Structures are given as C-alpha cells and as structure tokens.
C-alpha cells in the first residue's frame, strides 16, 4: 500500500494536539509531586471534577461559558486547598504507599460524588470553541483539538514563566529541592504545599474543561488520568520539561498506534513505552535519580 503522507501528518497533528492536554494535566501532577512528594492518582478524577463543575455552572445555572470556566477553576482551587489541609497534610511523613493510596481513595470518593449529583449518564458540555476546521497546509486538524492545544500551550507557558519569576513559583521550586533548607530561609512550607495543591487542581480542572469539551463528560472520564500517569513516568515524576515532552510523545504514540494498528493498541502502545522507559531509564527521561544511602 502506498504511504499516505497526508494521513500521517494529520494523525501526528491530532496526536500532538491530544498530547498538549496530556502535558497540561501532567504539569498539574508534577507541581504536586515536586512540592509535596505525593503521587496523586486522583489527578484524572480532579480533571473530571473540573469538567463537571463547568458543566454544572454552564448548563445547570446557564452562566456564560467563560464565567462558568472561571467558576470551575475556583471550585477546583477550593477543593485543592481543602483536600491538602484535611487529607494530605495529616499523611505527611507516612509511607509513600499510604499517601498514594489516600489519593486512590480520594479519586473513588470524587467519582461517587459526581455520580450522586449528576448520575453516571454521559453529558455533553456546551459548545464554546469555534468549530471551523483548522487547516495546516493540506492537513486537517479538528478545531477542538487545535484550540485545546493552543490553550494548553498558553497555560503551560504562563506556568513556566511563573515558576521562574513569581515569588510563589520560586518558593515552590525551593521547597521542591530541599524542604529543610526552604524552611530555614523563611519559606512558609505548609503554605507552599497548599499553593501547590490549589494551583495543580486548577490546572487539572482547566484540562478537564478542555478534555470534556472534546469528548463529552462522564463519571469514567478519570481514565484520562491513566495516560497522564504514563506521561509523568516517562517524563520523570519531578520534571516539568519531562511532563511536556512526554505529554507530546505519548499523545503521538497513541495516535500513531490507533491509526496504524487499531484502537485496541492505543493503551498497549503507551504502557509498553512505559515499561521500556522504566527498564532503560528508571527515573524517566528527565527525572531526578534518587540516591540511596546506607
């Protein structure tokens, strides 16, 4: 069969588009991990929460979409603050397994709450993105994917700048590299923990709105988080550049596997990638190797 280069280009674009959303969600994951060393398995459910909050405000209360979006981010931020204070902080110093399982429990609670309020039926988010197709050369890109990618890229850019220059961002990075040292130079470490959770939940919620507007929302959309887990492992749990690069990479691999092998190969491909990276680079492509001492 002759190679269809246009299809390859289109599939790659679509993959990179989705990869942008992975990268955005992975960024939320990495912020939490860097600041608090918590592997947050509930990231997919927090994303779902954001999408449902948006749905509730935009469809239920009939607010304009941008008000609803801001509202959803606020809800997620408050949620992050409450969760950090009531669930995560009491677990500080416990074994990583326990903390990780706490987030699994949290994810399950979120699914239940969403189903209590909105039932398990799938819903569609109100349309708020332009729906004229995007053409890059001859290649077609679905508008939601394209615009979703642009929003994701913009948010990521803002974050990278904040990390560098904003006081809170600097405090976060300082805490990430050495908690005790951060304490000793007067950084409010518990405050940084809260901040990380608030910001990360808001980022995840934003990603949730984008993801939900593409595929609709349902109480099972948390499975999106699974692909994000692959992303952060491949990139390295504590690496922002890792999250971005691996996000795009995983998006691309998934799209190519889906297009050329079939949909059933998507998850297989990404998880095989994960195993391969773990065997060759145990701490991901960009992650920090933990040094063990006796």
């Amino acid at each position: 069969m002759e190679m269809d280069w246009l299809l390859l280009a289109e599939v790659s674009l679509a993959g990179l588009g989705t990869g942008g959303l992975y990268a955005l969600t992975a960024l939320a994951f990495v912020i939490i991990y860097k600041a608090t060393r918590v592997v947050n398995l509930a990231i997919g459910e927090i994303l779902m929460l954001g999408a449902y909050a948006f749905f509730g405000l935009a469809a239920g209360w009939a607010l304009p979409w941008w008000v609803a979006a801001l509202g959803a981010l606020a809800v997620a931020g408050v949620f992050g603050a409450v969760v950090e204070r009531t669930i995560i902080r009491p677990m500080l110093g416990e074994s990583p397994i326990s903390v990780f399982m706490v987030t699994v429990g949290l994810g399950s609670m979120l699914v239940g709450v969403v189903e209590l309020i909105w039932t398990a039926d799938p819903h569609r988010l109100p349309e708020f993105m332009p729906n004229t197709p995007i053409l890059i050369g001859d290649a077609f890109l679905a508008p939601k994917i394209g615009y979703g990618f642009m929003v994701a890229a913009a948010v990521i850019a803002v974050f990278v700048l904040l990390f560098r220059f904003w006081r809170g961002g600097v405090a976060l990075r300082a805490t990430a590299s050495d908690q005790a040292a951060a304490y000793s130079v007067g950084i409010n470490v518990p405050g940084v923990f809260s901040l990380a959770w608030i910001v990360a939940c808001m980022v995840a919620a934003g990603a949730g709105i984008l993801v939900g507007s593409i595929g609709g929302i349902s109480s099972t959309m948390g499975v999106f988080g699974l692909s994000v887990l692959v992303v952060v492992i491949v990139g390295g749990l504590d690496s922002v550049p890792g999250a971005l690069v691996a996000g795009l990479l995983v998006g691309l691999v998934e799209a190519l596997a889906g297009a050329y092998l079939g949909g059933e190969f998507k998850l297989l491909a990404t998880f095989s990638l994960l195993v391969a990276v773990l065997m060759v680079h145990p701490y991901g492509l960009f992650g920090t190797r933990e040094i063990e001492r006796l």
Partner: protein
Amino acid sequence: MRIATAKETYAADEALFDTAVQRVWFAILLAALALFPFLADQYWLFLAGLAAINVISVTGLNILTGYTGLVSLGQAAFMGVGAYTVAVMEARLGTPVLLNLLGGGLVAAGVGMVFGLPSLRVKGLYLAIATIAASFILHFVFANWTSVTRGVSGINVPPAAFFGMALDTPFKLYWLIMPITVLLLLGAANLFRTRVGRAFIAVRDRDISAEVLGIPLLRTKLTSFALASFYAGVAGGLWAYFFRVVTPESFPLLLSIFLLAAIIVGGMGTILGGILGAVFMTLVPEFLKLLVGFVTPVWPDAAVHLSPVRTVVFGAMIVGFLIFEPQGLAEMWRRTRRFFHLWPFKT
C-alpha cells in the same frame, strides 16, 4: 484476665498458635467453617465463596505489598492469568481440578515474576505504576490472543469435577474453596516464622541494609512477586470455577485497587489483616444494601443512589483508615482482644 503461659521448649514457643486457648479457638473456627454450609442458604454460601477467593488474593498481595513493601496494582491481572490457565486446562485438556489450580498458580507466578522485574530497577511509586502496565498488557493479551483465550467473548468453564462429582453449586464449591483458603493462609502464616518471611520484612523496612546483612534483594523481591502471583493465580482459578466464565473484562484494574484497599482496611503486613480486610470489603456492598432497605421509608430515593454511595464509601474507607487507623481492622481487633485479656484491669 489472662496471665502468662509457660512454655517448655523453643519449638512450643515457635508454634503458630502458641497457647492452648488459641488452639481451642482455632479448632472452634474450623468447626464453624465446616458447619457453615449446612446452615447458610445459597446466597450466604455464594458470599462466603467470593470472600474466600478474595481472602486468598488479598493475602497474596499482602505478602508482596504489606510484608515486602512492593506496591502492586497488577494483582487482578495475575488473577486473570490464573483464571485463564485453569479455564484452558479444564475446558481443553480436562485435567484434574487440583492440578489445574496448581497450574493456574504456577503460570501466574511466572508471569508475575516477569512483571516484577522492573522492581530491580525501580521501587515505590514508580513500581506501582509499572504494575498498572501489567494490568493493561495482560488485558490486551486476554482480549487478543484469540486462539487460546477465545477473545472478548471469553471461555466457558465446565464445573470442577471431584471424584466424579460435579462441583456446580456454591455448596459443593465451598468444600473446594474453603480448605484451599485455609491451607494457603496457614502457608502464609508459616512463611513469617522462617527466614523467607523475615527476608521479606527486612526488604520492606530497609532494603539496602538487608542486602548488606546477607539478603539478596533481587531474589527476595522476585520470590515475593512469584508468591503473591501464585496466590492470585489460585484465587483466579477458583474464581473461574466459581463464575464459570472467564472474559477479559473479568479482572479490571478496579479489582486490583479493591484488593489493595482490602489490605489497607484490614491491616498491612498481618495475615489477620488480609482476612479481615477481604471479608469486610466483600460484605460492605451487602451491608449498604441492607442500610438502603432501612432508610428507604424516610429517603425513598436511597436505592437510586446506592452505587455512588458505595463508591464514596469505598473511597472514604481507604482515606479514613489510612488517616485514623493505619494499622487497619487487625489493630482494632488486637485492641479489643487486649481489652478482654486485661479485663478488669485497664491498660
């Protein structure tokens, strides 16, 4: 109040049940387990069988996660390997039940070891996520290796035959499942009286010191993976006989999370914890149903919200136990027991 018991030999002090009182209680428990099927109806027998299967798998996972400190989210997938092995052996080869179950356990142990290999290089959370990969890769194999697994429609399993009798009711299956459960539990308890079990705990508590003290990490970790997967495989095999059809959708990631939640609720790193956790978590949905029955007169919509409430309760139990009772039900049990031992004096 109970006072100390004197022991004459070291062997007696090393015994699993080291007091006469404990041995009596164990005998009573065995008798109760033997009597149970004659008193219970089909529904309770079903729940007992399901709980016992979960106890086996949870105990295996407890060996790996609770005792060796290696988190796995692949236990359900390894149950799947055992279930498929048993299904193929039973349906295609027609080999005897116990051989099939052993085969299920061994094949699962082999597959478990392969997926345990990353534990050499990564640990903790990286490993936990790597085991999710096991879950998806195995699911893919179940769904697509059609010539063996019959693809998405799965394999129908003939009833287990024992000396010519078809074990086709929960009552009859009980006599297959319960003795195996008791044996595997005793095996697990024995393990921690020996060097093998001590090595597991040492790896969990301080793996690098353990290495310097003479414990080969690789072999110990893989042994733990193999053993956990063996238990999963046997549990999966019994599952196959119990539900009589094995499909790729029978062993989802959610089941792995359920099993992990059971050891947290029950108590990580104790045999009793695995038992309590598995039984408790199996029965929680039934308790909730009863509860719904009670509140329906005041809250007519209760039934419609049962599933989300169940999901919330499931999550809340994980969170609640981890925050308020990290040692799980086993610790609550110990406290209760201590209270009665010391009664009427207070601790």
